[in-house]
């Protein structure tokens, strides 16, 4: 769910949110620089592997048949999986938001709901129902069903915000329903499609559990296998470099297609909801298609889970590790959430209150690192802690730091939109009424951004609770989280024992999805 930018910052509002002409304080700039450098550690790690290990050592490790196979698998996964997710996501969003679809409120929720089932839980459901599932087709099936909501949510949010007068104008110029969709609606969804597509691609490349369960090899699964046999040796690093390069190429690609396009509403006016199209005889077809989609993405995984819950009975719930896992997950995830908010706050403050090239660059740096798969972040932190501060290796601090790097965009996006709704004029009004600048912030800005802080912390914490790879590599020995416990049970084919953890993981993920869902449906003010 990383990078799902459902920002609800008000557009075209007259209120000032940036301080004109006033420069950020040296302290703030220095702090954000330190943060940017710290979260760039994984990128530095990749660069230093190339520089230190050297090409002669890396080349034979990279150019071998096994890597070629992984490359083909990963590339096919992205090349086929992303368009599938985009088609399903945009199609679903259009049906829900712009047609007279029976039960559209329910569909709106059901299409976002698969996000609450972690991909590795959904894969567990599928593989225990269809044990022969595997290979590229199995990987595509499981991943597409798990990740299409990453396109659906931003696409639906954008469609809701489209200015209907553009479509009305297109109609008045003689375009029919299909013409309007392809000439007016779809082009305006470009940013949502590319952005959502990038997020899906990054998820496909960094997913471990879902593919390992169905024995489908990608770079990420191979790195974990390599790591378990040779630790942080050059072989794992070499694979990591290739994977990181693919991710960075995708980032650059997305940024360049984005260009300077801005599809903001020009002029002000009341944001009317768009018109809906009658489906006529196609209504049963649309409902059936969505029904099959929901059956496959939610029905199959949840049905298998139910079967294993019944099979495991009370015994599965009395595993002694269950209680420990709940407590440790809450502590680690809570620590990650608090740390991510603390680190994201100065960055968001600089970006919103002092926008400019410096702010953009520093903020961008934090996004680059978060785009790298968790396995790279984990490898980097293992190497860096062992080389510089061995005392930090496999400590809670390192795990929390990894969570901050991986999940910072979630905190940043929430805080940014929160700060954007706390205009600077309010702080000025408080200062004119006798409050010092710091006190004015505490009394006026803080209460206004509390909801954003809460949402950001929840998104980070819930993501961290479901995190598998970095936790497996970085957590102190003996750490048991829900995700790692689920993983060790399900990879040992103890499916019944894994079921209670899966239920808890879904319960933990659900509120985060609810937050994303409501954020994406908020109408803009003004």
């Amino acid at each position, binding site marked *: 769910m990383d990078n799902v930018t459902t920002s609800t910052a008000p557009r075209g509002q*007259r*209120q000032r949110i940036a301080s*004109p*002409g*006033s420069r950020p304080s040296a302290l703030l700039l220095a702090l954000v620089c330190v943060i940017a450098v710290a979260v760039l550690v994984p990128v530095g790690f990749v660069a230093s592997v190339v520089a230190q290990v050297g090409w002669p050592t890396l080349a034979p490790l990279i150019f071998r048949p096994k890597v070629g196979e992984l490359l083909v698998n990963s590339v096919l996964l992205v090349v086929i999986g992303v368009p599938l997710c985009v088609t399903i996501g945009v199609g679903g969003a259009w049906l829900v938001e712009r047609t007279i679809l029976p039960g559209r409120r329910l569909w709106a929720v059901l299409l976002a709901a698969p996000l609450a089932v972690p991909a590795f839980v959904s894969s567990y459901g599928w593989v225990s129902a269809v044990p022969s599932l595997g290979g590229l087709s199995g990987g595509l099936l499981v991943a597409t069903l798990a990740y299409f909501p990453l396109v659906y949510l931003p696409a639906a949010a954008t469609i809701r915000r489209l200015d209907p007068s553009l479509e009305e104008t297109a109609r008045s110029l003689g375009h029919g329903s299909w013409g309007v969709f392809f000439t007016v609606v779809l082009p305006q969804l470009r940013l949502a499609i590319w952005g959502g597509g990038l997020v899906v691609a990054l998820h496909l490349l960094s997913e471990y559990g879902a593919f390992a369960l169905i024995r489908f090899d990608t770079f990420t699964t191979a790195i974990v296998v390599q790591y378990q046999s040779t630790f942080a040796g050059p072989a794992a690093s070499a694979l990591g470099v290739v994977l990181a390069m693919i991710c960075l190429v995708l980032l650059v690609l997305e940024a360049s297609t984005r260009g300077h396009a801005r599809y903001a509403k020009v002029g002000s006016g009341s944001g009317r909801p768009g018109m809906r199209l009658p489906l006529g005889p196609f209504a049963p077809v649309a409902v059936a298609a969505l029904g099959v989609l929901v059956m496959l993405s939610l029905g199959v995984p949840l049905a298998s889970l139910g079967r294993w819950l019944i099979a495991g009975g009370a015994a599965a719930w009395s595993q002694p590790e269950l209680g420990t896992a709940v407590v440790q997950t809450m502590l680690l995830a809570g620590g990650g959430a608090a740390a991510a908010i603390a680190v994201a706050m100065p960055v968001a403050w600089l970006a919103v209150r002092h926008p400019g090239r410096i702010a953009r660059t520093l903020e961008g740096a934090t996004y680059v690192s978060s785009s790298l798969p968790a396995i790279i972040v984990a490898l980097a932190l293992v190497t860096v802690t062992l080389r510089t501060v061995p005392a930090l290796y496999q400590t809670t601090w390192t795990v929390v730091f990894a969570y901050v790097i991986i999940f910072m965009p979630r905190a940043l996006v929430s805080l940014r939109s929160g700060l954007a709704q706390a*205009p600077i*004029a*309010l702080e*000025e*009004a*408080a*200062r*004119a*009424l*006798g*409050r*010092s*600048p710091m006190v*004015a912030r505490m009394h*006026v800005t803080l*209460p*206004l951004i509390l909801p954003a802080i809460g949402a950001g912390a929840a998104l980070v914490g819930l993501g961290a609770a479901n995190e598998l790879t970095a936790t497996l590599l970085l957590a102190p020995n003996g750490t048991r989280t829900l995700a790692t416990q689920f993983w060790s049970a399900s990879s040992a084919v103890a499916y019944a024992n894994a079921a209670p953890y899966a239920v808890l993981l879904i319960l933990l993920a659900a509120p985060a999805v609810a937050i994303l869902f409501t954020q994406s449906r908020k109408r803009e003010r003004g």
Partner: protein
Amino acid sequence: MTSLTIEQISKDLGGLPVLRAVSLSLEAGSRLAVVGASGSGKSTLLRLIAGFDRPDSGSVRIDDSLVSDDAVFVPAHRRGIGYVAQDGALFPHLTVAQNIHFGLRGRQRRGHEADAAAELVGLDVRLLKRYPHELSGGQQQRVALARALAPGPRILLLDEPFSALDSGLRNQTRHAVVEAVERTGTTTVLVTHDQAEALSFGQQIAVISGGRIDQAGSPIQVFQNPSSPQTADFLGDAIFVPCQVQGTIAESALGRLHVAYDHRAGGGEARALLRPTQLSLDLNPDRTNAVIVRSSFSGSTVRLDLRLTGPGAPTDSVLTFDLMTAHPDGYAVGTAVALSAAGAVGVYSLAH
């Protein structure tokens, strides 16, 4: 009662000069309106008085205490100012009463200060328990004013507080503000881009453009004797008639005009400034001096374009003005008319 003195204030923003050596002074208890187009520097001036920003040079004094110069800078929260922003800047998480209480300390809060402040600005006390988003725009601005006045500020600063309101509400709210500051005797500075608002607001008006004060004085004085044609045009409909000046007499196509103010400088042709109210039109004259070339009806007025035809009139010059008339028909294009002017004029040199 508090006076305000600003001396030689300059401020650059992003490398561009926004204010250049601005000086103004304001007597205790009086009202000043600073009027200028957008980008003229008027809001920056207000922010420097408030203490939100620091001037690059120059000084600000409130009464005899220096609050800003090269060495001293008193921050906004220690200046004892009241400030009303364009959109009111009400705290959305606080009720109206809590908003008004925000600037009050300790014992004051327990009293009836909120009620008193609400009454002062003509706000229904039943609204005190509501939240800002439950109020209309005009009510929000009254709350912002009550909040600013409640702590008894030394100086009240108003940053285009009426511009977000529609015209009827704007006048009503402006009257409420003038009444409230008159009753409390608070020294007040208003910045606005609306000349009618500026002229009607205070005892003093200052016209600002390009970061400089073009002219300051009483509203009537500044309106009747603007120091430049630009200021004249900015403050209201201005009609410039070509003329020849000899002593205190200006000869023009409209006849002889008495020159009250002579602002000619350097070369350029002389032009006499006339306001529409000074002009009258005769549709059935003995001698005509103008012909109607365009006529558009807009309710209580008819906008006319006239070409002067009298002796010495340049053939290319067209005058435009709005005529108030009870008989809007009869002003057809092509009608020859007699245009005459009453009252004294100012003359300027226009470079062409």
